[in-house]
């Protein structure tokens, strides 16, 4: 216990990409203080550079931006930009870390990111954020939505820094006096209990090796550059034009596996996992941008193994008309002088083909650059031969060094959802490790007593911000001030050079107190970035934080009407009048708190359920673990080795032991869920056991880990021919050294049995690797055996590729087949005949097999439907649970407080199931670690004076937050009224938009407020 107590409740997360951000947010929300160190000037990482994300084609920036902002505002996350890890000492639980911070030359507290400096800066350089496709100034903002939203000077390009006295224009124009040329490198020494390494990746650079003429032919670009060309904020504002001559692109080709699966030219043997989907997305989006665009993807295997990916692939192929060509291109050459490119390849019919393209996109892979390898060395963790952080499949986020965790692409190539899952998983692992120190380092703010202003007539104070010259340079702020003073209820008007500056906050506080102001209007920039700041100021002044309204006279006025000061001034007056009208109807809102039952419920006792339960228990939470059968372990009991060769039965047995002895875990075996009530923080679930006895447990969160099952094939003679077996059956026979296996000389594996067909358009993800492992084993036992794998696309993604390579080296024969030409399996009673068309030899093939092994699909459990109904969490069309967001909320369900992990979510291998289970635990811990949660007060409020329970709003609510209540009131007749569950309500206002009688409205955005705002806009 003495040792335990020495653990420190703060954590360093290295890397401010989406993975690090997720880890930081989950840790901060679970009671740990986080130092988030980021090498560049702003967090966001590679995702912030993407245009769209697969498979939903969501705008990448739109979905990551809220996370960035959340990170920037979290009291318990300290973002340190331009910083790198420089040294580490101490032991797990109590590390001393030194961090080197490069000078920014711009004062973070003073810069208001108005952009004047960059406008005036004379030095123009290529922009790394745009992957070199565009240019920026020597003083620059990494990207428009950057967090922190502050400029920085690039010392290597700045004229003034290189030769003092030669420029300094930025300093002259900066109204906020934020430029500091004397800034120097700083060293910080920090004490942390654990580290999470999430530095990400570097895209493969095809230039040094001159791959396909990259660097020589301007129209050969990387996939990352394509993202920037397609982005509305990119150098061409989304117009797809040839870099060579700006001509519109009519034909585009994608070449896969550049810097992946290629040891000869690129020195990278692994598969980067994401490039197939990225190329399909690139082609699909490009086709959207350019009607009639011809897009072709040249590939070896189409690896679309993730959730929803195969459907995305099929849509691109069949609906959008993207052409997929299975081959390796053997030449990209310029055709003529105008930038056209000629591609040469041998097609599937064996003919040499030449095609011409305007643009060739290299789908570059992911890799770990030298500086990250140095960091790994510095910290002292082991790396894999492919240069990714080495981890175990059963603890996929723990490095070889105790107290140091990892996640994201640094721990192996992977897509965003899997990275986000690992970010959360790392948070869970850290939280388990530092459990005794939870809450020790977190910060909380305290506020003065709030003054009661209900019933007072409006005493509105208006503060008009000059924003240096950003507003005052165009808008006649004196005229606005004069006008504002004439508005009803306004008792105080004041102008400020910077309304957001530290000293102005004190000015506001004094004015509120001295003048007895009860409503505040700030005419400045956007509420989306500054509302929280002014709310805090109101709280500090003892005024309810919701009594402020912001008139956006900068972003929506001065910045967009530069040539028209008169109109801009008139519009500013309008916006102030509208804000005054809206705030007049505001009432103080009390924060909503929901008590939390600090217990969890995990449904499913397989690998994912066991892992999640144990992780929660190790964080100190009581967990009810519900298992349908009388045996723990689930599908993992059928497995022998993970892809890295770890022994599954031993690891699972150990895990079960730890679960059984953990005093925080209450096991309910042979039990199912039969009823559910409540919501996040307060669920009541009824459990029914095999004897028919029911009991109700209370819990704050729930994790669904009900797994899946193997598909029972109808095809390939499975039901009629004795030696046609599924892969799991084969494993058992193999294990038992069954005679036919032992003596067998010819084995045929058939892939995609029940997967990727019309009925189940998804990849079962594990079967390729599984068959390859079995094939290797068969060959190892007896190299004279003939082992064939009949596949559609070999999907040994990531570092699994080494198994595929090994199998080929050992002589396993891989034969490709297509969906329309499935193999035929027949038997004459003695041997089994497998017939199919060979695409390389272009002739039919007959294989005499002793045994045929079917890689049968993983399908969803039928009882998922019941749970889905009870907890109101939707299933997708294949019966797997639907996550809240495919990209950024991959373990959360749409019902708050419910999470999903393992195969119940989608077929996945051991390491990914474990990671997702840990992630679910981390997400759950952000709720369970509090006694109560405080929610934003912008929620639906029912007005009993108007609501009559007509029920129009009930089914309109996307969160099932509205229920009809019948209450016996005065007299005999019952009164009907709807009630809103505040914990479930998200404040979207769909109810308000539906109600014909003002029965329900969103606090802060009531229909009357919006109406008055509109009417105010139309006055004058």
């Amino acid at each position, binding site marked *: 216990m003495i040792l335990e107590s020495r653990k420190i409740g703060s954590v360093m997360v290295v890397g401010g990409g989406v993975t690090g951000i997720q880890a930081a947010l989950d840790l901060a929300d679970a009671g740990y203080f986080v130092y988030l160190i980021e090498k560049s000037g702003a967090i966001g990482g590679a995702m912030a550079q993407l245009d769209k994300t697969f498979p939903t084609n969501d705008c990448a920036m739109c979905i990551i931006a809220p996370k960035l902002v959340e990170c920037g505002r979290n009291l318990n996350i300290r973002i340190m930009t331009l910083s790198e890890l420089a040294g580490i000492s101490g032991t797990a639980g109590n590390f001393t870390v030194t961090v080197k911070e490069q000078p920014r030359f711009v004062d973070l507290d003073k810069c208001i990111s108005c952009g004047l400096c960059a406008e005036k800066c004379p030095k123009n350089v290529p922009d790394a954020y745009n992957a070199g496709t565009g240019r920026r100034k020597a003083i620059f903002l990494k990207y428009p939505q950057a967090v922190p939203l502050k400029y920085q000077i690039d010392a290597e390009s700045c004229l003034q820094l290189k030769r003092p006295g030669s420029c300094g224009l930025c300093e002259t124009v900066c109204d906020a006096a934020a430029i500091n040329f004397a800034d120097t490198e700083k060293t910080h020494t920090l004490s942390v209990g654990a580290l999470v390494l999430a530095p990400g990746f570097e895209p493969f650079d095809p230039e040094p090796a001159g791959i396909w003429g990259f660097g020589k032919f301007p129209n050969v670009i990387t996939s990352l550059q394509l993202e920037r060309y397609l982005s509305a904020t990119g150098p061409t504002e989304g117009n797809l034009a040839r870099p060579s001559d700006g001509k519109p692109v009519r034909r585009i080709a994608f070449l896969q596996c550049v810097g992946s699966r290629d040891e000869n030219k690129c020195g990278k043997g692994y598969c980067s996992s994401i490039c197939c989907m990225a190329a399909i997305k690139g082609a699909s989006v490009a086709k959207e941008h350019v009607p009639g665009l011809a897009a072709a993807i040249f590939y070896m295997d189409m690896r679309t193994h993730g959730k929803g990916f195969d459907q995305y692939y099929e849509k691109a192929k069949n609906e959008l008309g993207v052409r997929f060509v299975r081959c390796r291109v053997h030449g990209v050459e310029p055709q003529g002088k105008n930038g056209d490119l000629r591609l040469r390849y041998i097609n599937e019919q064996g003919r040499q083909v030449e095609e011409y393209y305007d643009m060739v996109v290299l789908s570059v892979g992911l890799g770990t650059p030298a500086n990250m390898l140095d960091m790994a060395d510095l910290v002292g963790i082991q790396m894999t031969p492919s240069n990714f952080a080495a981890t175990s499949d059963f603890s996929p986020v723990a490095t070889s060094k105790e107290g140091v965790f990892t996640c994201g692409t640094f721990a192996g190539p992977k897509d965003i959802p899997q990275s986000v899952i690992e970010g959360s998983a790392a948070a869970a692992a850290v939280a388990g490790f530092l459990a005794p120190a939870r809450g020790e380092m977190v910060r909380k703010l305290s506020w003065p007593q709030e003054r009661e202003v209900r019933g007072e007539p409006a005493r509105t104070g208006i503060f008009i911000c000059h924003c240096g010259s950003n507003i005052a340079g165009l808008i006649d702020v004196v005229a606005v001030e004069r006008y504002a003073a004439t508005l009803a209820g306004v008792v105080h008007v004041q102008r400020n050079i910077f309304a957001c500056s530290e000293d102005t906050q004190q000015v506001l506080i004094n004015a509120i107190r001295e003048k007895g102001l009860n409503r505040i209007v700030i005419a400045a920039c956007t509420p989306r970035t500054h509302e929280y700041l002014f709310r805090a100021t109101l709280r500090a002044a003892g005024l309810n934080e919701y009594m402020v309204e912001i008139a956006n006279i900068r972003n929506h006025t001065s910045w*967009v009407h530069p040539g028209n000061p008169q109109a801009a001034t008139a519009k500013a007056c309008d916006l102030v009048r509208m804000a005054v009208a809206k705030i007049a109807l505001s009432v103080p809102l009390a924060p909503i708190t929901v008590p939390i039952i600090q217990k969890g419920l995990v449904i499913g006792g397989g690998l994912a359920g066991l892992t999640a339960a144990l992780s929660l228990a190790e964080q100190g939470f009581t967990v009810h673990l519900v298992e349908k059968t009388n045996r723990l372990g689930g599908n993992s009991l059928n497995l022998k080795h993970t892809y890295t060769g770890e022994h599954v039965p031993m690891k699972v047995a150990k895990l079960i032991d730890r679960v059984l002895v953990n005093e925080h875990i209450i096991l309910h075996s042979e039990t199912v869920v039969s009823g559910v009530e409540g919501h996040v923080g307060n669920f009541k679930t009824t459990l029914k056991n095999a004897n028919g006895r029911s009991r109700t447990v209370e819990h704050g969160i729930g994790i669904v880990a009900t797994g899946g099952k193997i598909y029972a094939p109808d095809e390939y003679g499975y039901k009629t021919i004795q030696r046609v077996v599924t892969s799991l059956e084969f494993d058992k026979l193999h294990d038992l050294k069954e005679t036919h296996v032992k003596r067998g000389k010819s084995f045929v594996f058939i892939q995609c049995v029940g997967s990727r067909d019309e009925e189940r358009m998804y990849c079962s993800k594990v079967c390729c690797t599984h068959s390859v492992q079995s094939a290797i084993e068969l060959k190892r036992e007896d190299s004279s055996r003939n082992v064939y794998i009949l596949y559609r696309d070999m999907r040994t993604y990531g570092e699994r590729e080494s198994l595929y390579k090994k199998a080929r080296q050992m002589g396993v024969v891989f034969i490709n087949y297509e969906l329309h030409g499935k193999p035929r399996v027949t038997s004459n009673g003695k041997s089994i005949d497998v017939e199919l068309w060979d695409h390389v030899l272009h002739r039919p093939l007959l294989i005499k097999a002793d045994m045929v092994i079917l890689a049968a699909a993983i399908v969803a459990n039928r009882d998922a439907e019941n749970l889905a109904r009870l907890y109101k969490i939707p299933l997708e069309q294949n019966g797997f649970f639907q996550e809240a967001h495919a990209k950024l909320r991959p373990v959360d369900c749409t019902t708050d407080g419910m999470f999903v992990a393992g195969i119940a979510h989608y077929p996945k291998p051991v390491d990914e199931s474990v990671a997702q289970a840990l992630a679910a635990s981390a997400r759950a811990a952000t709720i369970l670690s509090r006694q109560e949660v405080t929610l934003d007060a912008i929620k639906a409020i029912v007005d009993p004076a108007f609501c009559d329970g007509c029920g129009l709003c009930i089914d309109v609510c996307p969160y099932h937050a509205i229920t009809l209540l019948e209450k016996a009131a005065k007299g005999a007749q019952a009164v009907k009224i709807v009630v809103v569950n505040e914990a479930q309500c998200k404040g979207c*206002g769909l109810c308000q938009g539906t109600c014909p009688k003002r029965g329900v409205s969103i606090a802060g955005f009531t229909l009357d407020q919006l109406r008055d705002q509109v009417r105010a806009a139309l006055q004058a």
Partner: protein
Amino acid sequence: MGFEPKIIAFCCNWCSYAAADLAGTSRIQYPHNVRIIRVMCSGMVHPELVLDALSHGADGVMVIGCHLGECHYQDGNHKALARSDMITELLDDMGYENERYSISWVSSSEPDRLARAFTNMTERIRKMGPVDLQNPAGQ
């Protein structure tokens, strides 16, 4: 000076309002005739607000939400779309030209698209002229 239309634009906090912010940051220009009303979701806008605006002197009303499938609240924009079809038909019943109302989708990173929507609407309304409140449909 000629006719300057007054246009009310209900902008969703998560997409079009943010795009309007970004239009500012990117110094993209658009007509000064638009007044933005910030709402949490395009599905929050009660049709009554559209009619109220037109009857109080707005010459055009816009509702701008997230792209379909990208709603911050699952399907609020689909509700807005269903209402919108209805509003478009009812405007005729109520005597307003239905071109005075528009619904569009803009993500938070598409300031150009937003500016284009504002510009197009302003030009469209400018051609139509003001609402005749006595006789909205020009009867």
